[in-house]
């Protein structure tokens, strides 16, 4: 018997993206992205800085409206949908931001309790116990009365993750779990992500550019660059792609730029009058 979800039950897409297109000031950031994320899958989105990972994530969360294309979240269209419908969908999502995005004026425990206090009619003691369980899960017991400004980067991420999973979401989005962390703390977060999938059967979408983390947690990896999908598949499938951009990302090589001299001079002298 397999110990992962990957090859046990037939899957249906938790997230489906079709023809997603977005541009800023005439520059295409995402052009015609098509992909699906299956239920119970850990799907890692990778790409170099500026490849559009954060823009893609904002679209998946309904924080930005696509110029073209469709996003289906848990079988429902994200656009067009009323604000109330989007909020109902979001109650089934958890989002852990890169720097935690905890509300600065609240203690750690108040931050974690916030979704429960807003969306449930549970009594205060039940909410407190549930929040402490998540704090224990994230190894943050004893820090409940700390303010966000008193926590380290790794603790902020873990507290953000605790808040993201407090409602036991069906899909968890995690933006850059390992960015700015030492290897031990990053590995600890990877273990937490795997544990969440194992215990709660969550679909998890992770945006990262940390290869070590992707190798450890991903069922499938999607690499984006130059506005499009450069590769999608299991780690082995992605690694076998001959594309130089993919290889530079996976092997941390500098990407060779093919420029002619005129283009270089044009860039240097752009928008200079005299």
């Amino acid at each position, binding site marked *: 018997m397999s110990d992962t979800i990957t090859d046990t039950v037939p899957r249906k897409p938790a997230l489906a993206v079709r023809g997603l297109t977005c541009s800023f000031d005439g520059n295409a950031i995402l052009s015609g992205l098509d992909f699906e994320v299956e239920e119970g899958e850990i799907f890692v989105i990778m790409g170099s800085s500026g490849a559009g990972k954060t823009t893609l994530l904002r679209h998946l969360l309904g924080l930005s409206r696509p110029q073209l294309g469709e996003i289906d979240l848990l079988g429902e269209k994200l656009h067009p949908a009323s604000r109330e419908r989007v909020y*109902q969908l*979001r*109650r089934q999502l958890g*989002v852990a931001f890169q720097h935690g*995005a*905890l509300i600065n004026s609240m203690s750690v425990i108040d931050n974690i309790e916030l979704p429960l206090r*807003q969306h449930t009619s549970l009594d205060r003691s039940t909410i407190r116990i549930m929040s402490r369980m998540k704090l224990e899960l994230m190894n943050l017991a004893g820090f409940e009365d700390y303010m966000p400004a008193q926590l380290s980067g790794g603790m902020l991420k873990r507290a953000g993750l605790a808040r993201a999973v407090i409602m036991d979401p069906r899909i968890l*989005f995690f933006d850059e779990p390992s960015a700015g962390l030492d290897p031990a703390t990053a590995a600890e977060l990877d273990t937490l992500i795997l544990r969440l999938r194992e215990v709660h059967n969550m679909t998890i979408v992770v945006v990262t550019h940390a290869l070590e983390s992707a190798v450890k947690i991903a069922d499938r990896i999607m690499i984006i660059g130059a506005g499009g999908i450069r590769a999608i598949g299991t780690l082995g499938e992605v690694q076998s792609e001959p594309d130089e951009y993919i290889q530079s990302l996976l092997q941390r090589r500098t990407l060779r730029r093919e420029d002619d001299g005129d283009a270089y001079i044009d860039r240097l002298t752009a928008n200079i009058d005299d």
Partner: protein
Amino acid sequence: MIKRIGLSWSAQVLEPLAALGRFGIFLAQLSGHLMRPWRQFRNTLGQLHFIGTRSITVIAVAGGFVGMVVALQFYDTLVRFGAVGLLGAAVGLSLVRELAPVLTALIVIGRVGSAMCAEIAIMRNDNQIDALECMAIDPYGYLVAPRFIATIIAVPLLTAIFNVVGIAGGWFVGVVLFDIGEGAYFASMADSLVWRDVLMDVVKSLSFALIIVWICTAKGYLLHLASHRTFGAEGVSRTTTDAVVASSITVLFADYVISALML
């Protein structure tokens, strides 16, 4: 060059119009939440404490000194015409009609408006507002509506405190220092102040409260769309300065308009 001038001109004309439109949409998005204040009752109470209770001292001190200065200035003028008996009327009318609502509003802008704008702008800058959205918590209902309701309740009450303490300050200068009869001070005030003056005071304080909270919260909330296109610490600082300047000027403009309409 001509193209650049054209673009810059159109940007200068269109940008304020776009900003005005965004402020209108902001208020429209908020309006539904203002009709359901009980939803964020605890939050609203917290804001009422911050905006109202914690402003009482500074409003009382300012009101006291303003009342004393007004009495001093009027005494110096009235004594030349032998009309010091009108000191109470002069102090009462100038405070109730004009000084109390305007100065309370300016103090609230400095103490509360700037803090509200900076706090919301920092939340926008650090993705905290996006985090609320992702938790299916409407930031208009959770962040902005309690501040709106609390400001609209607190500012008229603070104005009333300013009036009372200001009149007491005037009494101290007129009655205690210059020995005008206490009866003359209060009788002339009671004779000259009519309900219309009190109504003007209330209308002004409510209007100023709305102006302050609208401009300060919208400026912070819409930081990412600000025309200065600066973010981080500098963006928050510029936005807060803009909010204080814009709300102060708008309060003074509104003061003139309301006075012109009601006098």
